[in-house]
C-alpha cells in the first residue's frame, strides 16, 4: 500500500487535535454521522434475523479466506470462461502498470471511474496521469474530492467533511477547468448540486470508451462481478464504454452466487442505511450486444497476503467497506478521516492500514491507539470483525518494536508494583502520604490529563488499609 499522498502526515494524535479545534468540520461530521447512524439502526432493526445474517456473512468470508488460493484459481477460470481476461498484481506498482498498459492499448487518453477503494489505495489516477491519461471520478463525493484537490475522508462518502456551502464553492470555482462549468446561479441546495454534477459528467459518460471500476464482490463459481451504487454513475461506467477494467482486491471473493443473498442484505442496510441501494450491477465476463466487449479483471494483493498471514488480524479482510464502523465511531466523529492518513479511515482503517503498510512510520504506529476501545464498531460491523481485539493485538506488535521507551519503563514499573500486594500497599501509603502535595495542574505528561480535567483527590486510606483496620477492630470485638 503506497498512499504517498499521505506521506509526511503527523501521527494520529496531532492531526486529531487539529481536527477537534475545527468547529466547521466537527459540525459537518457530527451532523452526517448521526444522520446515517439513525438510518442504519432503523433498517437493521427491521430484520429479526440480522444476527444470523451477520454470522453467515462472517462465516462466508472466513470460508473464502481460509481457502483463498482455491477460490482465486476458481474465479480466474470462470472469468476466462465467460470471455474476460484476468491479470494478477502483487503490488500497487504492478497493478498501475497493468491498467495503464490496458488503457494505452485502446488508444484512449481518458477513462471514467466508478468509486473504488482499491484504485484509490494504489493511487491509480496519479499513475495514469503520469502516462498522460486523465481519469474522471464520477461518484459525486469523489468528484467533490477530485475537483477540490482534496483527500477522501470517509469510505462511503469521501467528501463527508464538506458541507453544502463548501461543495457549491468548489463546483463554481473548479468545474470549468474540467469540462462543463457549473451554472452561475448555482445554489447550495443538494438537488441543485446533484444536478450540476449530472450535467458536468453527462458528456464524459456519453463519450467514454474505457471504464475503470472495483467490485464489491467477485463470485468464484460463476465469475460474476458485483458493484453496488446509488447515483447511476456506476452503471454508466460499467455499461457504456467499450473496455472495462476492474481492479479487485483478492479478499473480495465470495464462493457462490447464492452467497450474495447474505451480502445484498448486509451491505446496503449497514452502509447507506437503505433497505437496498438504488442500483446494483452484476456482470459475468462479456455479453454480446450488451455492455463492454472487452473485460479485464486485475486481482490485487498489495499487502493483503500479509494481513492474511496474521491469524488474529486476518479477520480485517472480511471487511465489505460499508462504513458502519466509521459512522458509529466517537473518535472518527471528532478526529475526521484525514487524521488516519490513509484511504481507509476510522476503526477499520486503524486496523487495516497498519497491517497493509506496517507500523514503521510514526503515523502508522499511532493508528492502533486511535480508539478508546468502546466496542461500538464491533457491534455494528455486519461481518463481525472484532476491531477492538485486533487493535489490542496491533498495539502488542507496536510495543514489541522499538520506541515507546518512557511508556515501557512506566508499564514495567506498574507491573512490578501490581505483581505483589505488599508493594501495591506500600505504593498506596506513599501516595496517601503525599496527597496534599498533588497540584491541580500536573506538569509534563500529566498535563495531558489536567489540561481539561481535574484530578481526583487521593484518599487518606486505601480500601485495603480500611479493611485491615476494620477486621482488627472486629477481632478485638469493636465496631467498624
Amino acid at each position: 500500500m503506497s498512499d504517498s499522498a499521505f506521506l509526511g502526515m503527523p501521527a494520529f494524535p496531532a492531526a486529531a487535535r487539529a481536527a477537534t479545534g475545527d468547529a466547521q468540520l466537527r459540525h459537518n461530521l457530527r451532523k452526517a454521522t448521526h444522520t446515517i447512524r439513525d438510518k442504519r439502526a432503523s433498517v437493521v432493526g427491521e430484520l429479526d434475523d440480522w444476527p444470523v445474517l451477520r454470522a453467515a456473512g462472517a462465516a462466508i468470508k472466513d470460508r473464502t479466506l481460509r481457502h483463498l488460493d482455491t477460490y482465486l484459481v476458481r474465479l480466474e477460470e470462470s472469468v476466462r470462461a465467460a470471455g474476460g481476461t484476468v491479470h494478477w498484481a502483487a503490488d500497487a506498482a504492478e497493478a498501475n502498470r497493468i491498467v495503464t498498459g490496458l488503457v494505452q492499448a485502446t488508444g484512449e487518453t481518458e477513462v471514467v471511474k466508478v468509486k473504488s477503494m482499491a484504485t484509490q489505495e494504489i493511487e491509480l489516477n496519479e499513475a495514469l496521469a503520469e502516462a498522460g491519461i486523465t481519469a474522471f471520478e464520477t461518484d459525486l463525493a469523489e468528484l467533490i474530492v477530485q475537483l477540490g484537490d482534496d483527500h477522501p475522508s470517509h469510505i462511503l462518502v469521501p467528501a463527508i467533511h464538506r458541507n453544502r456551502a463548501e461543495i457549491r464553492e468548489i463546483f463554481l470555482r473548479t468545474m470549468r477547468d474540467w469540462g462543463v462549468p457549473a451554472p452561475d446561479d448555482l445554489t447550495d441546495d443538494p438537488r441543485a448540486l446533484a444536478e450540476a454534477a449530472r450535467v458536468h459528467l453527462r458528456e464524459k459518460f456519453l463519450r467514454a470508451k474505457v471504464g475503470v471500476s472495483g467490485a464489491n464482490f467477485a463470485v468464484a463459481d460463476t465469475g460474476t462481478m458485483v458493484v453496488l451504487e446509488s447515483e447511476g454513475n456506476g452503471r454508466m461506467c460499467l455499461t457504456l464504454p467499450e473496455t472495462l477494467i476492474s481492479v479487485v482486491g483478492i479478499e473480495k471473493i465470495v464462493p457462490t452466487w447464492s452467497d450474495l443473498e447474505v451480502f445484498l442484505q448486509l451491505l446496503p442496510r449497514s452502509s447507506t442505511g437503505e433497505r437496498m441501494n438504488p442500483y446494483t450491477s452484476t456482470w459475468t465476463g462479456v455479453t454480446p450486444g450488451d455492455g463492454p466487449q472487452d473485460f479485464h479483471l486485475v486481482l490485487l494483493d498489495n499487502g493483503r497476503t500479509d494481513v492474511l498471514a496474521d491469524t488474529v488480524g486476518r479477520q480485517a479482510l472480511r471487511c465489505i467497506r460499508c462504513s458502519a464502523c466509521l459512522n458509529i465511531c466517537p473518535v472518527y466523529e471528532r478526529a475526521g478521516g484525514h487524521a488516519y492518513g490513509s484511504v481507509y479511515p476510522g476503526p477499520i482503517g486503524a486496523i487495516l492500514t497498519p497491517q497493509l503498510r506496517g507500523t514503521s512510520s510514526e503515523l502508522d504506529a499511532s493508528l492502533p491507539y486511535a480508539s478508546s476501545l468502546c466496542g461500538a464498531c464491533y457491534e455494528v460491523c455486519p461481518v463481525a470483525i472484532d476491531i477492538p481485539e485486533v487493535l489490542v493485538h496491533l498495539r502488542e506488535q507496536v510495543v514489541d518494536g522499538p520506541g515507546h521507551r518512557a511508556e515501557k519503563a512506566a508499564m514495567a514499573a506498574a507491573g512490578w508494583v501490581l505483581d505483589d500486594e505488599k508493594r501495591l500497599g506500600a505504593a498506596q501509603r506513599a501516595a496517601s502520604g503525599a496527597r496534599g502535595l498533588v497540584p491541580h495542574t500536573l506538569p509534563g505528561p500529566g498535563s495531558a490529563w489536567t489540561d481539561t480535567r481535574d484530578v481526583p483527590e487521593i484518599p487518606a486510606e486505601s480500601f485495603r488499609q480500611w479493611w485491615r483496620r476494620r477486621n482488627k477492630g472486629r477481632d478485638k470485638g469493636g465496631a467498624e
Partner: protein
Amino acid sequence: MRVALFVTCLNDTLFPRTGRAVVRLLERLGHEVVFPEAQTCCGQMHYNTGYRREAQKLAVRFVRTFGDADAVLAPSGSCAAMVRDNYRRLGAPGSRLAEEAAALAPRVYDLSELLVDVLGVTDVGAYFPHRVTYHPTCHGLRLLKLGDRPTRLLSAVRGLDLAELDGAAECCGFGGTFAMKNEAVSAAMGSDKARHVAATGAEVLCAVDNSCLMHIGGTLDRSRSGVAVLHLAEILASTEQEPARL
C-alpha cells in the same frame, strides 16, 4: 451468600469509598464479603495498551487468588469485562491460564448482575433523595450486556428521580491510556458527555465504573457544573441513617 470482593486497583487506591459501600450494601442484605488480600489488578491497563506479558502475569495472579470463589464481585464494569472477555485471549488455547480463566469467568460479576441475577434483588432498601442520571459505560453496555439491570436497581431506590441521559450509549472518551495518548479527542468526547449530563438537570451522575466517572467527573468539575459523580454501589448503599456523601 459468600461473595469474594475484587475491589480493583483503581478503587482500592483512589476510590475506597466504593469498596466500603459494596461491603455495607451486601452485609445489609445479609451476605458475607471476603477480601482476598493477595489481589492487586486484573491487568486491563497493560492488556489494552499492548503489554501482554505483564497482563498475563496479573491474570495468573487473579485466577490463583479467586479460582475457588463461589462468586467474584468486581465493582467496575471494565475490570469484570477484562476477566470475562479478555482472559481467554491471554492464555494460549489449552494452556492452564486459558482453562482456569474459562472456568472462573462465569462466576465473575458486576454489582448489578450480582444483585439482580445471583441474589435476586432489585429493591435493596436504599434511600437517595436526588435527581440522578445514569451513564451505561461501554464495557457495561457492550461486553457485559448489563441492559436495564442498573436502572432497575436505581428506579427502586426511594426518593430517587432518574433522568434519561441523551447519547447515553456513546463512549465518554476515557479509554484508559487513550485519555493520555489521544488527549484532544478524549477531552472532546468527555466535554460532549459532560454537556449531556448537565442538560439532564441531575445532581448526580451514576455509573458502574469509577474510571469513566473519574474522567467525566474531572471534566464536570473543571467546568464547575456542580454535578457530583457516584458509583452505583454508593447510591445503593445509601440509607436515611447513612446517606451517601455527595
